[in-house]
């Protein structure tokens, strides 16, 4: 019980302290917003937005969570405040859960931005919200752990961002967001950004598909 109190304090402190840090602001918030705007403006019809939305959401989460970890872990390791956490009696697993928990939450919040923007442009009533929430959580968890792997491998925040881009950008290209390359998409089907974005896509079209099936039936 005492440790859970420490857990919440770490999560809340990270949220308060790091959510609006410059690297996080640029890569984690502004970047996904810019991408979302770019794709939505480019789209000609509401159907296009619905098709693009899962990919943009997945990307927002990926960039948000990996940037967040780069800040919370790398910043603290550099300033040696991470040592303070390691020297506290909080179990190591709970400590890492607290550090990643904030990033997962941040990723989920990031995923809401494209949905919010899309809600002004298209009818989003066909989305299966439960399935979408599950898929978003799945992407947030998997990309947070990718971010953690990167954050513990480097010592500077800029190194973490650069190293993250070695993973993030190839994933964006491989998943076929820009061009529908069937071979690449097939090979990247197991990547952090692709497989969950498929599930997001399914959940985004779930109700309309079910409705269409009912009508046909």
């Amino acid at each position, binding site marked *: *019980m*005492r*440790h859970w*109190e*420490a857990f919440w*304090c*770490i999560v809340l*402190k990270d949220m308060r*302290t790091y959510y609006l840090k410059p690297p996080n602001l640029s890569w984690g918030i502004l970047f996904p917003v810019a991408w979302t705007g770019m794709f939505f403006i480019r789209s000609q019809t509401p159907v296009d937005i619905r098709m693009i939305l899962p990919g943009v959401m997945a990307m927002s989460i990926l960039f948000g969570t990996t940037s967040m970890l780069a800040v919370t872990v790398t910043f603290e390791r550099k*300033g*040696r*405040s991470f*040592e*303070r*956490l*390691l*020297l*506290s*009696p*909080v*179990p*190591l697993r709970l400590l890492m859960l607290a550090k990643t928990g904030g990033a997962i939450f941040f990723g989920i919040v990031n995923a809401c931005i494209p949905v919010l923007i899309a809600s002004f442009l298209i009818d989003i009533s066909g989305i299966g919200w439960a399935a979408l929430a599950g898929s978003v959580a799945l992407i947030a968890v998997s990309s947070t752990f990718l971010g953690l792997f990167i954050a513990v491998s480097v010592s500077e925040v800029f190194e973490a961002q650069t190293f993250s881009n070695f993973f993030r950008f190839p994933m964006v290209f491989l998943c076929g967001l820009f061009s529908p390359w069937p071979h690449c998409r097939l090979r990247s089907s197991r990547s952090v950004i692709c497989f969950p974005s498929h599930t997001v896509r399914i959940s985004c079209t779930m109700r309309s598909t079910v409705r269409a099936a009912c009508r046909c039936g």
Partner: protein
Amino acid sequence: MAIEVSGLRKYFGRLRAVENVEFSVGEGEIFGFLGPNGAGKTTTINMLTGLARPDSGRIRYFGRDYTADIKQAQHLMGIVPDESNLYPELTGRENLKFCAALYGMPGREREQRSSRLLETFGLTEAAERKFATYSRGMKRKLTIAAGIIHRPGILFLDEPTSGIDVASARQIRSLLSGLNRRGTTIFLTTHYIEEAERLCARIAFIVAGRIVRVGTLDELMSSLEAGHVVELLTSAGTDQLAAELSGEFAGVRAETVEPGRTRLYCRKRLDLAPLFGFFERRGIEVSEARLVRPSLEDVFVRVTGLEIAKMDNGGHRGRRG
């Protein structure tokens, strides 16, 4: 015993960091851990606090063996690193409350304890300011306050007064003495020998990863070859007089430092009455006689210098810096 360490050993690859480190620290004691740069002080502290895992050896706190899981002992200790490592974005009060939360302190107690410590350390006025805006001395004080927020039985302090002004350093030393009087065991590493001399009851010297001397100040001082040194200020004093002194008193070596100032070196305590008689017979007036004690710095230089020379002769090179 608050801390008992035996056979502690740590290698980084083929580089020896510490080897067979052994010492014990009594409850309520201030124990100094001194050594030149790269001697293994930080590695030892890291192993004692759980930041590094020893290759072998035992670590016991208050009689219980925690070697396999130091995490279980972390609630017993407060750690103040050589660099202040609190959160620059949080205020002084928020930092203390956060540190208290890490040790599972309930909300109300966190608030009370933080306020009390801010007051004790003279930081109440700066409590709502961000840590990043604090001066170096204030940062140091708040870091110490954060180290004792959960009332630990043992406090590890790494260079507590390094790089801060004299007034702040004095205040910190006085706060540490106060903490110790209330029963906190303090494990102190410092480069300031004078500080160790003032604060510590016992001191260990570590050189090249090995403990070379442990003892009270008196024990360490008496370990110097020089033994007792008595300095006399006299109305006259020559090399001839020094030679006569050496001849008359067995086990005493006299040396004229300058005319009228003579130093007597002896292994045992010197009886002053026959000495004054010696000068009286020669019509020489003695205006002052004082015991010249070797400083801890003399002992430190002698011990560490000797040991380094021994190690180099022994071919123990390639140790970790």
